[in-house]
């Protein structure tokens, strides 16, 4: 709770117009995610049903020829996230807090910090999930700790780079759009 409070203090007060825009972006992203998830779920159910009716069990070589539902779910998440980011950028904002609402250049220190947090989260998550999977499949004594750490570090690094590019791109687009809006709304 202390960290969240400090974060809010650092980010400054919220602007109500930006907050309204952010809410709209989240609403659209949420809608896409729900519809996408439902479609994937329906696809998965139908896949199992058809497989069962045709006496061709899904856990055989047939599985290699199918489009995995996890891939479709990842696409739904990616589309909803992209939609939210695009709506935010089009409204000339990167969030509802005022600290970076009027910047004219990309705040690289902040962008690096967010990308670092993103990379660290992905790295730790990848490591923990791999260990959990291995514990269930090959047992705790056969967990491959070093390779798991290496994979976590690699995916964490990848997450940092992607986070950096995406967040810097969002800032760049939002700044350009905000300048356009400000030119339209002459002082």
């Amino acid at each position: 709770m202390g960290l969240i409070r400090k974060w809010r203090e650092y980010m400054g007060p919220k602007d109500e117009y930006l907050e309204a825009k952010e809410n709209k972006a989240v609403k659209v992203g949420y809608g896409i995610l729900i519809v996408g998830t439902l479609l994937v779920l329906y696809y998965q159910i139908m896949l199992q049903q058809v497989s069962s009716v045709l006496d061709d069990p899904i856990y055989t070589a047939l599985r290699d020829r199918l489009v995995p539902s996890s891939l479709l779910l990842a696409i739904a998440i990616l589309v909803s996230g992209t939609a939210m980011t695009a709506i935010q950028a089009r409204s000339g904002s990167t969030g509802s807090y005022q600290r970076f609402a009027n910047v004219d250049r990309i705040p690289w220190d902040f962008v690096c910090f967010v990308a670092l947090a993103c990379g660290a989260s992905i790295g730790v998550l990848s490591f923990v999930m791999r260990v959990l999977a291995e514990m269930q499949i090959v047992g705790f004594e056969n967990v491959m700790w070093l390779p798991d750490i290496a994979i976590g570090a690699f995916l964490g690094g990848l997450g940092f780079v992607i986070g950096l590019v995406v967040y810097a791109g969002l800032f760049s687009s939002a700044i350009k759009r905000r300048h356009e809006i400000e030119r339209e709304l002459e002082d």
Partner: protein
Amino acid sequence: MEDWKNVRMKKARKDAGLSQQQLADAVGATRQTIGLIEAGTYNPSLRLCTAICKTLGKTLDELFWEEG
């Protein structure tokens, strides 16, 4: 952009010698928000209306009441 613009708010701000950015800083909003209110494309909350009125020394009626 809608046809209705808040000309009275813009005039009151200019009379007070404030830029959009200065008014925004005074009421805890962004310049974009102030510009959009003046352009009539964003309806502010009562809290923000009150803050704008206090800063510009006007009443809610004077700045935000729509005649007719």
